């Protein structure tokens, strides 16, 4: 079965519908699946619920879907650096569920792993615990967090083989790893598609079973939010 598609629009054909839930990889703008986000914008699909650690910045990444008003609800841990987000959120047009970063990662991992709920100390005694069940294990309180399992996951990898085995590069891995598992329709964009057998089977980050559709999105001009450097010591 062929998993490779010519472009993001083709790869998303037939899987988008209004009101759907999408898990989106990336941390800030690093490792965000930008070709797939562009194709979702172009499709006009709306009332989306998106689980993503961040919400992009104005006009970049998920910021595009906010600008086009396609998003009904965000599930995120941090949403700074985004004026349009702020405007929609404060006016009540956009619903936001704030979720601690580690809890968000685990909720998606749990969804992919068939675990509907798990207990964590994170957020005990805070607003995050409001309305959630509490349980005591060995003298300590924990809250019950629910899994996230989406209609669609969109992720960005570095390389993938034609079977869908995928690897990431450096910290661009981030949420792409758990998000790759948290739906039955994971669509991946990568910088290079290589022949089957090119990636060492011991070094595959996401086995092919999770990747249903695949595109090469190159060439990429990667975004940097805060470019920091140091001076070379003079000789």
């Amino acid at each position: 079965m062929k998993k490779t598609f010519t472009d993001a629009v083709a790869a998303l054909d037939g899987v988008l519908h209004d009101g759907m839930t999408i898990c989106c990889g990336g941390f800030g703008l690093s490792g965000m699946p930008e070709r797939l986000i562009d194709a979702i914008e172009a499709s006009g699909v709306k009332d989306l619920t998106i689980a993503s650690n961040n919400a992009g910045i104005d006009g970049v990444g998920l910021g595009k879907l906010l600008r086009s008003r396609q998003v009904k609800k965000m599930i995120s841990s941090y949403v700074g650096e985004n004026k349009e987000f702020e405007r929609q959120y404060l006016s009540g047009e956009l619903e936001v569920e704030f979720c601690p970063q580690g809890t968000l990662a685990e909720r998606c991992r749990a969804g992919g792993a068939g675990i509907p709920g798990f207990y964590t100390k994170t957020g005990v005694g805070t607003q995050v615990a409001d309305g959630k069940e509490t349980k005591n294990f060995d003298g300590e309180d924990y809250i019950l967090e629910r899994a996230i399992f989406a209609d669609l996951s969109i992720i960005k990898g570095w390389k993938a083989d034609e079977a869908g085995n995928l690897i990431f590069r450096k910290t661009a891995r981030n949420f792409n790893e758990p998000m790759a598992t948290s739906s039955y329709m994971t669509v991946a964009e990568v910088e290079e598609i290589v022949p089957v057998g090119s990636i060492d089977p011991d070094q595959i980050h996401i086995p092919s079973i999770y990747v249903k559709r695949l595109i090469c999105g190159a060439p990429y001009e990667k975004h940097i939010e805060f470019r920091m450097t140091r001076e070379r010591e003079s000789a």
Partner: protein
Amino acid sequence: MTDAPKGWDRNQMAARAAQELQDGFYVNLGIGIPTLVANHIPDGVEVTLQSENGMLGIGPFPYDDQVDADLINAGKQTISELPQSAYFGSDQSFAMIRGGHIDLSVLGAMEISENGDIANWMIPGKMIKGMGGAMDLVAGVKKIIVVMDHTSKSGEPKFIPECTLPLTGANSVDMIITNLCVFQRIDHDSPFQLIERAPDVSEADIAACTPANYTT
């Protein structure tokens, strides 16, 4: 408010926090003054820094020609890697944090209560940006050190009987380093104790701007 003495500067506070580092520690440093702790690691002490976006072994900022968009820290700043670095996904990163495998985290705060509650993620009425990984860190890391000014810019005390702001974590903090002094407690059932003062800062100076109960 009294005209409080200045005490330590940002670098001195970071240096004091760095004295808590032990050889072999795995450490997560927050944004702001905590980041400066990396500049003061004592000689003979090897520490591995974790970045919660998925890296162990954070190196210094890169040279201009080594900047890599795929290599950033949790503050979204470009960084470099070290020979012993390792990358992993966000689920693995927070499994480490939540599971208590990180020895120490140094964080900033807006308020700390006398029982160790910490508030550092939102101010009601202001735009909420989210807690990021702060709630996971204060709940999961073995030892939590807060580095903060003793009073806010408007002169309000920050170490208080009970937090007024929404909490990041309840009963989480082990040590507080301010520009004036250091408080610590031996466990989460004990009160904080004043264990150290900046030069020229008296116990009375501290008492005057510290509504929280603590031992001396």
